[in-house]
């Protein structure tokens, strides 16, 4: 009893101290490393490069070791990243900058080729499909010339061309700004770069504009042509964005190969009441048939993979509750037009989170989450559902050290070819990051998965472990 009272006393003291000496204004901003709860990556930004002309050259190397293990199989990979950039260097009347970001990955178990004869090959990954040596990915490698020719930007090399659409390609992208920065016209062309397909004969090109009609209203439009593995696509988009004091409203219409879709979404933020509200409405207007072709649409377009007409509405509210607590509630409804099929399902989804900011210490961020997803029955299958609940905790120890801990419990109820099945998947993960100085950082992440889903392979197979170690060095 004494121990319980002591604990309560300590908690009350801790909470009281924080509430008394806490942040002057409510601030629900997540810690710098919060994204590790979604993706456990650890390429840490290291600073202070070398003088390069009147700019700066930054170079960093990151090594990553990844181990996946269970009672029957393990898989180990090693990745080496190189990241370099040159900040603006004067060239003529403008500037030049450059970026190089690439990785080389290797299956260090030395077992290339998927283990199709094994029952546990799901532990392997894309590196096991490589025949030999290092699998190299070029994420970016480009030079950008800004203002070298007045009012123009030209980017040459491997790049993510991001206008109204995004496409990863080797090529050239250029824009010219007119009418006192009110109108920007762009064009690009080159060879799409996908990490998975033979893209040697592929082509991509596009053009478009962005017009600032007023200080708050922006109109943009673009056309993209993509040809990949003898599948070509024509993508047209028109978009309007209106910003106002407390948020934004956007609308986008698109057409890919004759199939139309549109999205309207908006955000409202009211600081005095600590309220954020987001709403989205999306509709696919055409039925995209699954024909005899290899792909439903072009294999590298980021759109239209769903091939049944549908309407989707999403709404979420995030409400601050005092200085140290905030709550989120969300709902999402997808309504399939016509009969639901295996790959085109209507659903309703609810999500909620309760966040504690600065509880116990000013730099503790705790989020408790719960999701429920109910998927409608289709022609040949029953309803499906997923329930998820969990917690995410980040403790910032200093500007050099972060720790994180999280857990998720998933319950799947689904109906494939063999009737309804119910399975649990439980996950726990723990990690940390430490920056030794401005040039060196280390990140370690460990996770444990306990799953009923793997028992169809072996009744004893339910535990899986993974470990990732990242070391970043600035040169």
């Amino acid at each position: 009893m004494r121990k319980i009272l002591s604990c309560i006393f300590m908690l009350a003291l801790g909470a009281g101290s924080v509430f008394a000496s806490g942040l002057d204004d409510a601030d629900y901003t997540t810690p710098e490393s919060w994204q590790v709860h979604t993706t456990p990556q650890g390429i840490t930004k290291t600073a202070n490069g070398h003088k390069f002309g009147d700019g700066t050259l930054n170079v960093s190397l990151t090594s990553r070791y990844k181990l996946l293990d269970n009672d029957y199989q393990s898989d180990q990979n090693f990745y080496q990243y190189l990241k370099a950039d040159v900040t603006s260097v004067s060239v003529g009347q403008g500037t030049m900058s450059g970026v190089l970001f690439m990785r080389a990955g290797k299956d260090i178990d030395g077992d290339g080729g998927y283990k199709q004869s094994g029952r546990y090959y799901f532990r392997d990954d894309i590196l096991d499909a490589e025949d030999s040596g290092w699998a190299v990915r070029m994420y970016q490698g480009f030079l950008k010339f800004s203002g070298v020719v007045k009012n123009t930007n030209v980017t040459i090399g491997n790049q993510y061309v991001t206008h109204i659409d995004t496409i990863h390609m080797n090529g050239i992208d250029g824009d010219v700004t007119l009418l006192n920065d009110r109108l920007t016209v762009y064009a690009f062309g080159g060879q799409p770069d996908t990490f998975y397909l033979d893209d040697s004969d592929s082509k991509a090109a596009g053009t478009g504009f962005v017009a600032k009609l007023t200080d708050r209203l922006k109109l943009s439009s673009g056309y993209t042509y993509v040809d990949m593995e003898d599948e070509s696509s024509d993508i047209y988009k028109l978009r309007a964005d209106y910003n106002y004091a407390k948020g934004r409203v956007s609308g986008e219409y698109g057409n890919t190969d004759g199939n139309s879709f549109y999205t309207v979404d908006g955000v409202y933020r009211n600081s005095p009441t600590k309220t954020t509200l987001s709403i989205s409405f999306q509709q696919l207007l055409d039925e995209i048939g699954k024909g005899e072709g290899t792909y439903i649409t072009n294999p590298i377009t980021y759109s239209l993979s769903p091939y049944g007409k549908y309407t989707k509405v999403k709404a979420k509210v995030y409400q601050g509750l005092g200085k140290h607590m905030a709550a989120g509630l969300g709902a999402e409804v997808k309504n399939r037009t016509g009969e639901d099929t295996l790959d085109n399902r209507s659903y309703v989804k609810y999500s909620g989170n309760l966040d504690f900011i600065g509880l116990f210490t000013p730099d503790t961020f705790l989020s408790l989450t719960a999701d429920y997803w109910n998927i409608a029955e289709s022609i040949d299958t029953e309803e499906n559902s997923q329930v998820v609940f969990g917690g995410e905790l980040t403790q910032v120890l200093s500007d050099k050290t972060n720790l994180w801990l999280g857990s998720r419990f998933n319950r799947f109820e689904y109906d494939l070819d063999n009737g309804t099945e119910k399975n649990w998947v439980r996950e726990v993960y723990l990690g940390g990051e430490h920056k030794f100085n401005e040039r060196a950082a280390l990140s370690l992440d460990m996770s444990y998965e306990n799953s009923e889903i793997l028992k169809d392979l072996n009744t004893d197979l339910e535990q899986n472990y993974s470990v990732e170690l990242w070391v970043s060095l600035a040169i």
Partner: protein
Amino acid sequence: MKYVISIMFCLICMTVFAYQTSKPETHDNMWMKQHGAESKADPASCLDCHENRTSCIKCHNDTAPRDHNASFKRKTHGLKAQWDRDKCLACHTEASCFACHQNSAPISHRGDWGGTTSTNDKNLHCRSGCHYPVQETTCGTCHMTSHGPRELFGN
């Protein structure tokens, strides 16, 4: 005595471990689900801090999300793709589906599975029942038509 030490430890933590994030106020816990739409509306403002899109690439093109675990790889990714394919498109195009589905046959397709041209007496494929339309079965994940596997597979 040990309780006094514990309390002192808590107080030290509260005062010493003080580090404020430099992220904007909008980057609260809702931001993770909202940042995609915001980046489409105003991509230039993201680049003020996220230089050269490196952080976009790290999460969307390099390192898989935490929930892409063994169970996801084994089975639940297919369920998620049936339920809400839009979410996959945040990172994937169809090309990445085919990268695995053209390399790795399902576990059921081993041993006495047989096939449409097999003379194996056991031929589990033929005993698995007729599946029409094939799109309404898991066969449709790889096989566009009932007896015409995708040209890409070459089998």
